[in-house]
């Protein structure tokens, strides 16, 4: 469930407001968007992928938030998923990494 918007990283671009498929975020007049409808979060991690600043953290628990207060509470650095799928400039080579064929062909 979405837990954190890092005020230090967020630039207020509101891409997450648009990209969240369940309309969890609401823009604010000044500063970062707010998590307005946390209970509607489906823990799909898509907002993290679309955030160009790695300002979001989705906790892995789907039923309830973990109660993280700040970025320092997150067990891993923000942005690990975006890096893993190759959506950061430094990791773009990962975009064409997909070993599903090897998993599928295993006996």
């Amino acid at each position: 469930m979405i837990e954190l918007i890092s005020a230090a990283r967020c630039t207020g671009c509101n891409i997450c407001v648009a990209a969240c498929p369940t309309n969890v975020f609401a823009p604010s007049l000044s500063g970062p968007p707010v998590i307005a409808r946390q209970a509607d979060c489906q823990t799909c991690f898509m907002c993290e992928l679309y955030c160009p600043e790695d300002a979001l953290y989705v906790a892995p628990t789907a039923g309830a938030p973990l109660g993280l207060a700040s970025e320092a509470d997150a067990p891993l650095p923000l942005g690990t998923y975006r890096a893993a799928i190759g959506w950061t400039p430094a990791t773009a080579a990962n975009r064409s990494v997909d070993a599903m064929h090897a998993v599928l062909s295993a006996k």
Partner: protein
Amino acid sequence: MGFSSSAPSGLHLTCEVLVLGGGPAGTWAAFQAARTGARVVLADKGFCGTSGATAPSGTSIWYVEPDPKLRAAAIVSREALGGFLADRAWSARVLETTHAALHELGARGYPFPVDGAGNPIRVSLQGPEYMRLMRKLAKGAGVRILDHSPALELLVDEAGAVAGARGIRRQQGDGWQVDAGAVVIATGGCAFLSRALGCTALTGDGHLMAAEAGADFSGMEFSNAYAIAADFASVTKTLFFKWATFTDEAGEVIPGAASNGGRSVIARHLQKGRVFARLDRADAAMQANMRAAQPNFFLPFDRMGIDPFTDRFPITLHLEGTVRGTGGLRIVDETCATRVPGLYAAGDAATRELICGGFTGGGSHNAAWAVSSGRWAGRAAADFGRRVPNGRVRRGAGTAGLRDAGARPFDPAEAARTVVGEVHPFARNYFRTEEGLTRSLDRLDSQWARLSASAPADGTNVLRAREAAAMTAVARWMYRSALARTESRGMHRRIDHAAADPAQRHLLTAAGLAEVSVAQRPAAALAADAVETRAGEGIAA
């Protein structure tokens, strides 16, 4: 583009094709329709590109090179699992169209991995990458995309043909209406608010809207797919549990428990207590492959500090309903038309029995179906939409939650909880009996009567009200069909009729809202080399 804009209540557009749903099927339909020169609007309940079951995940896709022997083997290999209900001719069409579509996807920028010789490997797709590209392709072809714009009801003309839809714009707080020549329903399956990845918005909205316009359904008894996930997480990837050892609370191995062919054993144990898994049968090379195949699978584990290859973790089964089931809107011809003029169905909203009968084991077939049915429906809807006359008079076809039929509106949350209570429990939906299905249907039928005799929902509740009404309707088509199939076939498992009955190798049509009826249709002729042998064959666990 010639869109007429702005009505007092919000946005009012006119076009040839309206697509409802922006997942794989909807974007392929919109892209294909727009390429014929049609004006196309795509309305998505969330954000086209992140919505639905495909975007947050990765999926295998039923891609087979055009070698007749390989194609034939691929088609035949799944027939028994599906209870011998699939149609070889449709399967061949899907393989052909999917092959062409994936080559086009690569040419347009999808970064397929390559083998040692530099050839693209096209047997899987990464959801975020795939759906980001599909949005881009649809927009590039001129499709107008309305995000966060759930449809609430279809519009029909004087003759009963579907002629558009209307809905709400959640982020603008107003409404939209699209007067269209034809509509493609690509709203996905129905997963009944389970936590299965990407399924929250998949509440059968399109099923309800289509039924209100007169469409019917096929294979709704094949609607009880459950997927394995860590019990705290949303991420489902049953395939990876092929490498799991399943244990009980005390750490004892559960005999017979397996991701395929032993999932019912897991369900039985979960009825009594906790079940744990550890993916300890994957060697180092396979562990690396799994990470490189599905980064999303590991997110919940990494973030909880669990190593799924060495640590035992509790698991659950998330209902995937008709998302991974195979029932949906009935298709009446090769264009993916429904029985209602002007209304087409694609992807998981449509029946997938044509290519997989009563069982799907993974994204593979559903992903190929989404591509193929989307392309066919988009093209046919554009042809139809260009031919309809101008100046048709339209009216909303919606019922429960929209029309004034009673003194008070119903409580959407309470109505949703009632449906969930009837379809999530294994005892009711996984292990079906006449007694249990009948009891559920009593509650669901009376709920439908209550919802359809209520006052319209107000602005903030109307979406949730329509979702609850849709889930109620879908559950009734499911269970009425399940009651009529007095055997076990495909994923449909009757405790009181445990064997397959050769006399029931037919398809079931479900229809109606006030009264639900179920009728038999013949399945495609059984090929000479497909033999139903021993009792019980064709039942997937």
